[in-house]
């Protein structure tokens, strides 16, 4: 289980509730634009930045925004705007790896548990239940304390904590598919079990899986940023939104934009991903409903 955002959206969606149509609304286009923008920043990084994000100018410490430094500089005279751009990398790729890995593992386990049922299901779901209400960030802090701070170690731990969430959602969706006639037909025809799971059941479950991945992305972005904020992930010199937020908190009195900019980026990216996930879910499930 990663940050609770993921849980909420995922859980709630399975409950009854009236859904508003949001097909093609400007909010979705805006969200896609935000994510695309962050992706470009993450890939190109420092190339886009007007200054070297790590260069310290001790003569230009903590200056307010100007034409040369759009968001001013921080306590070490580093250009905040450039650091915001460079910070997209750790904000994007960690959650991407987590979402992808937990997509694969969660789908396999969820399909298996939902389709097989019985003891396998019981064991997998016990484990999922145990992991369910764990506070992910606290576990990351403990691991960082015992083993040492490391960004990629945190990513790996978050994968382990997120897989149960995916598993639970996919298992639920699989359980709905198993009693359907097409599954029985495939069984009667003697299609091997793994083929039924992957090529017959999974395509019908995939809308949930894809939408879910967006929520996992948003949740792990927020959790990782929290870990960076506490200073237990990346080394302190790295450009990272969470790290910037804690390092520049003292500048709130003089150059508030240095703190506000990374904060806005975290929230904007997370909310865009959550909205896309919600929207995808509505789109894909309403299309799939006719099948």
């Amino acid at each position: 289980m990663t940050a609770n955002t993921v849980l909420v959206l995922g859980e709630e969606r399975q409950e009854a509730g009236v859904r508003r149509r949001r097909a093609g609304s400007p909010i979705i286009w805006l969200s896609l634009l935000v994510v695309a923008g962050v992706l470009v920043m993450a890939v190109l990084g420092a190339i886009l930045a007007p200054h070297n994000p790590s260069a310290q100018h001790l003569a230009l410490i903590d200056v307010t925004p100007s034409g040369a430094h759009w968001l001013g500089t921080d306590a070490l005279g580093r250009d905040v705007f450039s650091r915001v751009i460079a910070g997209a990398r750790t904000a994007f790729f960690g959650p991407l790896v987590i979402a992808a890995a937990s997509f694969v593992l969660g789908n396999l386990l969820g399909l298996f548990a939902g389709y097989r049922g019985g003891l396998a299901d019981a064991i997998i779901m016990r484990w999922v239940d145990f992991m369910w209400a764990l506070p992910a960030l606290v576990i990351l802090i403990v691991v960082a304390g015992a083993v040492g701070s490391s960004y990629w170690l945190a990513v790996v731990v978050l994968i382990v904590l997120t897989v149960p969430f995916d598993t639970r959602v996919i298992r639920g969706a699989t359980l709905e598919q198993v009693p359907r006639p097409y599954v029985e037909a495939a069984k009667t025809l003697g299609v091997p079990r793994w083929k039924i799971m992957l090529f017959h059941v999974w395509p019908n479950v995939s809308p949930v899986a894809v939408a879910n991945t967006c929520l996992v992305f948003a949740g792990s972005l927020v959790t990782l940023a929290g870990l960076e904020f506490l200073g237990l992930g990346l080394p302190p010199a790295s450009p990272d939104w969470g790290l910037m937020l804690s390092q520049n908190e003292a500048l709130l009195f003089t150059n508030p934009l240095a703190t506000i900019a990374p904060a806005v980026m975290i929230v904007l990216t997370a909310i865009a991903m959550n909205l896309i996930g919600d929207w995808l879910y509505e789109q894909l499930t309403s299309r799939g409903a006719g099948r």
Partner: protein
Amino acid sequence: MSSRGLLFFVLRRLAVLAFLLVVISFVTFSLLYISPGSLIDILLGARPHTAATVRALTREYHLNKPFLVQYWLWARQAVQLHFGTSIQTSLAVTSEITARLPLSMYLGIYSFVLTMVLGIGLGVASALRRGSVVDRVLVGGAMLGLSTPAFVAGVALLYVFAIRIRWFPAYGVGSGFFDELWHLTLPAVALAVTTVAYVSRHTRAAMIGTLDQDYVVFARARGLSSRRVLYMYLLRNALIPVITISGVILSSLIVGVVLVEVAFSLPGLGSLLVTAATAKDLPVLQGVVLLFAVVIVVANLLADVVYMVVDPRIRVGERST
């Protein structure tokens, strides 16, 4: 359900609870061994590495005994709330924790009250005016709240309400109940942002589901006042889903306490955990983690019991946590 059934249920859950605590304590103890480097060096910290200190530590942590014996001796101490001494301060871990516990509890309870009052209130308001502008604003606000981690909310509130308009203090804990209330308002609100959004979304969905039920339509048709329908029929049924998410609310609050205490520089359990992790102060880390684990496990048990008492449809053994 019969009271005997409830008793049986509670006993079974207590057994699971005991098992979980053993597993958690074992993992927590093993943290010492997962940690890279020699155990003596870790436990010594910055203290001088002399034969005498090494001997004292070996005796204190029973390092010359087998692993499982060490665990057993450690666990026996832990049950009596002795977690050793902090590597950083050389104070007993227990006294470090008890010194910081009240602040975190104050903060947690304050946020919990905010979460329940605001979350349920906003969720109900939103569901009763489904589709209206109010509803849309609240749904959008909940989305924003869910995507805003506690530390971002904390820094934002600090900037707006303590630096721009000086309604609240930026730092400090305050002394006395009301002064503390005033000092902890911003942190508590920051902490509650995510959980309020979460509870209001759930309440809204549950209320909308309940509004369409036959018994509500019938109650209205009988001419019961809308206030009575709201309290007796709607809220009672809509609140059951809120109990089921209590585990997530709690874990969200614990994560939030850590972030908010660091954001506002408050000396609570959360900041203790982070300083312990930064300084590799494993005994403190173990103590705080065990405390959090006990809180989570016990709270989940309580939630299950409340859930069973409130909703007679739940049969024993049907729900798992």
